């Protein structure tokens, strides 16, 4: 078992990945990881769902290869009304998602870095309805400092392996 899978099991065993278990809501970051796909037009697309009674976005963590145009299809499979307020250059975007609704969001985001979005009605955010858009990549070479490559932090697993 990998360290990551072990950590995931610990979360499940602790009952932190469900509503009204140990906690009242569902702990942030306990959903799945998904990946956007880049189309021939350069737009990166993915579908995000709100499963019934889970109060999470699935995938909860959406990995996007680089900054640019992102198109999300948002589907509410829950039997309650939610929404999504999403980061976007120029202004946040909002979409209202009544029970059993489907819509889209076109976003423009810089990378690298990660952003959170959420359902801003009631305390959906506190119950778990937050999603992360994780944008990978590097800035262009011309934006980098004029210096030799520098050491970056190691992952915990790398550090443990070294020690």
């Amino acid at each position, binding site marked *: 078992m990998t360290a990551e899978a072990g950590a995931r099991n610990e979360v499940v065993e602790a009952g932190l990945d469900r509503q009204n278990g140990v906690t009242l809501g569902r702990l942030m970051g306990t959903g799945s990881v998904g990946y956007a796909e880049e189309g021939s037009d350069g737009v990166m697309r993915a579908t995000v769902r709100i499963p019934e009674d889970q109060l999470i976005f699935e995938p909860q963590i959406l990995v996007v290869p680089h900054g640019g145009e992102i198109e999300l299809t*948002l*589907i*509410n499979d829950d039997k309650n009304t939610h929404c*999504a*307020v*999403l*980061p*976007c*250059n*120029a*202004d*946040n*975007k*909002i*979409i*209202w*998602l*009544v*029970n*059993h*609704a*489907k*819509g*889209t*969001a*076109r976003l423009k*985001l*810089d990378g*690298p*870095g*990660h*952003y*959170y*979005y*959420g359902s*801003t009605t009631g305390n959906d*955010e506190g119950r778990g309805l*937050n999603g*992360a858009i994780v*944008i990978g990549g*590097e*800035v*262009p070479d*011309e*934006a*980098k*400092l*004029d*210096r*030799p490559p*520098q*050491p*970056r*932090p190691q992952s915990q697993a790398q550090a443990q392996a070294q020690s």
Partner: protein
Amino acid sequence: MTDYVDAGEAVPHRSLSAVNQSAPATRNVDYDRIVDATSEPENWLTYYGTYDGQRYSRLDQISKDNVRRLAPAWVFQSSSQGLQAGASTYSFEATPLVVDGVMYVTGPDGKVWAIDAKTGTELWRYKHATPFDVSLCCGNVNRGVAVGHGKVYMATLNCHVVALDAQTGEPVWDVIVGDVRAGESRTVAPLIVKDMLLVGSSGGEFGTRGHLDALDVETGERRWRCYTIPKPGEPGSETWPDDGEAWQRGGANCWITPTYDPELNLIYQGTGNPAPDFDGGVREGDNLYTDSVVAIDADSGQIRWHYQFTPHDLWDYDSTMENLLFDGPDGQKLLAHADKNGYFFVLDRTNGELQRVFPFVDRITWGEITPDGKVTAKVYPDEEGVPVHFWPGPAGGKEWTHMTYSPRTGLIYVPVQEVGATATRRRREFRESIPYWGAGVAVDLDDHYGFVAAIDPNTGEEKWRWRNEYPMCASTLCTAGGLVFQGTPTGEFVALDEETGEKLWSFQCGSGHHSSPSTYSVDGRQYIAVPTGWGGWVEGFLPGLLGAAAGSAMFVFALPEN
């Protein structure tokens, strides 16, 4: 199951507000108009009001005689949604700019607004999405915009510079100027010089290599970049270890707007601390051009001269704060700088020669600077794990917030912080994007106070001081009405008599001040605008008020219309 309900497409959040994304056209602001900004005191055209950094206005409607009647004309409230970077550290630190009745001001988290300067009505807004995980030394802050060439320019926390249409707020261009993976960010208010936009770097606590960029105002294309840490072989490189890597991550960032002398064509840029902040053992030498003023040729981007205020800094004494330009009694072109290290410097701004230096705070224990400029370090973190207390603390005797010069009195009004700190050296490896301080630091929770000092820069004499229970963490503003305005950490906005320091008026804004007020007039009525909102690097400059109420409102004051 039936088909899904069509939820349509997500819309801009602002479309669900009263904002219609339209500001009236103003006369074009260009370089010539900014050079002559003193002639139109109804506007606040550039960061300091004028290129010289004096933060003085010729407006005199609000005066010593009537300031007691000053009252809020309108209030602008910022807000936020969802999870944002540095959620507990946001602060409203900007200087509001005003052009022909339209105000342009930034807030935390990538926001900029155009506001009707007379009524407070929001005209348009732009929000640059800020990554949640961007490296921020000192909070989710931004210090303002530049306005000109039909555009509003803003630097973002994730190292973009955006140019917005001044009437609609729509992006015209957007360029990447830094590397967020290297711990870089941008918090500075840009400055227009000729057909260039000057934007300095932030990230001194993450071991970056500081620099000032000049961008084309129409395209964002880089004209030049001036690094403030020399590479091996360049002038100044002899002040870094010649067998090491220290220069590559040496700091000297340019996170406060420079001043500029159009006649000399020199940009005066203050530079930040060396990195690691408190561990000098890995960077032996003076570490140029950290903690300096560098005079940069505006056309070439070359450093013409420099003056280093704290050689081989071991106390986090950035010198990024303003270099105020004024003329001496004999017409000599001078530059005034009140440094974090507690000393006030006056230089000949044509060549950087020291004219005089004197302390402007009460308690200095880190070292001594003699009248001829000789620096002797006395107390500093040296031995691993041994705590060392010193005054001023790392936020300085004066922070980045600005002093002001009145040509009426010839005095410079300085916001002073009296707070010390303890640093314990803890050496660490450098890792890109991880804080690189080289010490544990705790700023004093008590035994602090502050004051506004009225200083004669030609003699060093303190003419008066207005003392406050808490350090002064906001910029001063002075006007031809004989007034000096100052915000306090506990929320009061006060007006002082420029000649005596007597408090003539105050208003409780509900949250502490960590910004720079400006003044303007519309239809013959003078206004004073001050963003409020306690935050930023509070643990660094006044941890005794870490629990104070935050806020994010801008108050605009005027005399009653009747």
